[in-house]
């Protein structure tokens, strides 16, 4: 059975880019959904099974950090892997997001291979292509 993925970013272009990289990564994917902010993402997560969330940080209505906080508070974080994709490359930001429960972090700009490597690390061998 393949992955059920949710891509969260306020930029439709970046969601397309991440979706393309995911599909080319070789990881087996059953479903790839999208949300434009943390609030939309939470609504989807509460109503649909998801295995992996890839999220930006700075988004309107609800940020990636607040999304992680809510996922932790509602128990979603215990069963959903999360990977942050952001232009913020500072150590303190990366540390903050990992402390909030993110399983991985990729800085923009990124080589598609870098995203693939982080996916492999976050997912382990379960969904390897």
């Amino acid at each position, binding site marked *: 059975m393949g992955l059920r993925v949710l891509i969260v970013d306020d930029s439709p272009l970046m969601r397309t880019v991440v979706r393309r990289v995911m599909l080319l990564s070789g990881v087996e994917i059953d479903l790839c959904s999208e949300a434009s902010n943390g609030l939309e993402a939470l609504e989807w997560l509460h109503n649909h099974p998801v295995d992996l969330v890839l999220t930006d940080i700075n988004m*309107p209505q609800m940020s990636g950090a607040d999304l992680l906080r809510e996922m932790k508070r509602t128990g979603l974080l215990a069963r959903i892997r999360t990977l942050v994709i952001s232009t913020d490359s500072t150590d*303190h930001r990366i540390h903050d997001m990992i402390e909030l429960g993110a399983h991985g972090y990729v800085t923009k700009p990124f080589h598609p291979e870098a995203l693939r490597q982080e996916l492999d690390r976050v997912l382990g061998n379960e969904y390897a292509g």
Partner: protein
Amino acid sequence: MLADSSVITRADVDALIVTAAAQVLEKMFFTGIETSGNEGDIKMDSPVQVELHFDGPLSGALRLQIDEQVARSLGSSLTCLEPDEFSRDCCVQLAGELANMICGCLLSHLEPEANLALTPPVETPEPTGAKTGIRRWFCLPEGELIIHFLLEPICDSSPPARVSS
């Protein structure tokens, strides 16, 4: 990264603009800079301009100008959409993402651990030819790109002065 991060000169920032642009273009767009410069006029048939601001230990703005056709070319290779599927709205989004990534990369070199807040990039009217800040044009295989970077404060190259302790 600057050798002495407490002294930022105009020449330092100009060099970092080139470094940041090259990194972003190579990693995300699989393209490179053929030539670049500060002087001269670049005419664009259908320019798209976006601007974002940043605040924190460093404050300022970055404006990026790119021709629609160049944005379409970069964007279609990035997304695998056909060029005619890449609307003007997509071109504006691409310009915004490019500005966001170049600014983030540039600021990470200037102040690696600073807590900086970047505003979302927004489309703006064409530039009025402002004389402040650093303006650099880039010639890519796909066409031209202009970045206008304003940092408060910024020193002339001689003599350099402390910007922050």
